[in-house]
């Protein structure tokens, strides 16, 4: 296998993680029009809970659904008890659009210090039973490992389940209707407040899976997912912020871009490249690849 194909595999593996984080941000944006900086904090908390589950159950795979469910619950609680009252209180005021965003920064800081208090500011090992040593093809070892393969498969399963729910269930239709046209949704009998909480829960679940899948490739600390938040934002912007498919494609595009830059240019420019891509997309095509409409009723 040549370098080109192994670079694609590596790109898809990191892209799968970016897709999940991007989906977490897009789901929140679609349901409540909030840019959620707390997503990294929510994911770190659920990943620590996953870490505890792994320690208790001695099984990494069983810790994944635990992380997913706690991620969903954490997110639903934040929406119900902080974001919704905040939105009601600031409605019609000058800070209506910015207050929730600043609140998410506050929540991010709060969760991070809480995690630091409970688990300490040290590096923990949340390990997968799979090897992080690359597959050997012929006589060469490629940088794509069984661990990377598990990330791709795990992310694909979650994305598929999300797609099926959004496309084919009444819950999914309610989520879509409430995000496109909340007023028509309410006039159709959809309890939009409740549906918004469900939207946040799905977002929390996506971020939690990203955290629990990616952490075995490095280590766990209170800020170990911060860079993932940035990548998630870049992916979401590439995908147009509105579109769930866009979020996933944006993540893959970014993952592949990173992998090729890393392989053919060098690691020193990888991260600046993310910001260059972000700014270029915003200037050249601010609606993203999948955002067709320039304006829309919130």
């Amino acid at each position, binding site marked *: 296998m040549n370098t080109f194909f192994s670079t694609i595999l590596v790109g898809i593996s990191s892209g799968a993680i970016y897709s999940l984080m991007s989906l977490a941000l897009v789901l929140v944006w679609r349901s409540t029009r909030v840019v959620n900086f707390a997503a990294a904090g929510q994911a770190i908390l659920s990943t620590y809970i996953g870490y505890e589950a792994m320690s208790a159950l001695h099984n990494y795979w069983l810790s994944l659904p635990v992380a997913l469910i706690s991620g969903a619950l954490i997110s639903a609680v934040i929406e119900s008890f902080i974001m919704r009252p905040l939105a009601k209180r600031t409605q019609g005021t000058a800070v209506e659009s910015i207050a929730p965003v600043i609140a998410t920064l506050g929540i991010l800081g709060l969760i991070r210090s809480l995690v630091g208090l409970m688990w300490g500011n040290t590096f923990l090992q949340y390990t997968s039973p799979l090897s992080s040593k690359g597959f050997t093809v012929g006589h060469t070892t490629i940088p794509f490992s069984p661990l990377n393969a598990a990330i791709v498969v795990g992310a694909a399963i979650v994305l598929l389940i999300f797609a099926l729910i959004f496309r084919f269930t*009444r819950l999914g*239709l*309610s989520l*879509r*209707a409430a995000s*496109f*046209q909340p*007023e*028509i*949704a*309410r*006039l*159709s*009998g*959809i*309890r*939009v407040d409740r549906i918004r909480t469900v939207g946040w829960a799905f977002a929390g679940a996506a971020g939690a899976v990203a955290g629990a899948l990616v952490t075995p490739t490095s280590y766990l600390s209170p800020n170990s997912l911060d860079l993932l938040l940035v990548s998630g934002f870049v992916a979401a912007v590439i995908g147009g912020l509105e579109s769930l498919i866009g979020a996933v494609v944006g993540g893959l595009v970014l993952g592949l871009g990173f992998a090729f830059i890393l392989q053919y240019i060098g690691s020193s420019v990888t991260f600046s490249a993310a910001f260059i891509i972000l700014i270029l997309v915003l200037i050249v095509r601010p609606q993203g690849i999948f955002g067709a409409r320039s304006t829309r009723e919130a």
Partner: protein
Amino acid sequence: MTLVVQGLEVKHGAISAISGLSFTIRKGELVTIIGSNGAGKTTLLRALSGLLPISHGEISWNEKTLIGKRPEELVRRGIVHVSEGKAVIPELTVSENLQLGGIWRKDRSDVAAATAEVIELFPRLGERLSQGADTLSGGERQMLAIGRAMISRPELLLLDEPSLGLAPLIIDQIFSAIDALRHRTNLTVVLVEQNAISALRIADRGIIINLGRHVTTGTPSELLNDPALRAAYLGY
């Protein structure tokens, strides 16, 4: 079952959009609310369906108050509002838009029956079920909006300007569909219209409002035969 509105007052900020409005609509009646732009017609419907909070007065349906109820709860009590301007979700397909009307209902077999009735009434929707609602013409979108409302099995249907922006031939189709629906299902209809002549053709009564206040109520022939009213509110 009756819709009773008593001393209704609705404010937009400090300005009263509706003040001291009272009227009664009996079960099975089709009443059209007539008035010029800014008369408060849309505000009235939005207050009736729970989209706008009211400042004073009472609204009751079936002798139960509607005050403080959210639209999503009122739908469950049979009050369904088709808001102004072809109220469909363009990002969804025709079929998904129709599904919205029954999304909250437990009786799935009746949802299927209601959907079949809507498609029978508006065959063009049936031919376009898998298309995006954004591909429909204005008239088809209005049919879709009304069709979605009918799948909720309304007892009281609130229609806001169904003729808005449509060609005269299409307006005739929409109005005869409304007329057919109310006779078939013993529906009570509040129809807000600028196109007063078309609306009065199918209405039992008309209520004329101006600047948020009640002007007069009468049968279509009473209203159409009053030269002063014709000149002031019916546009000719």
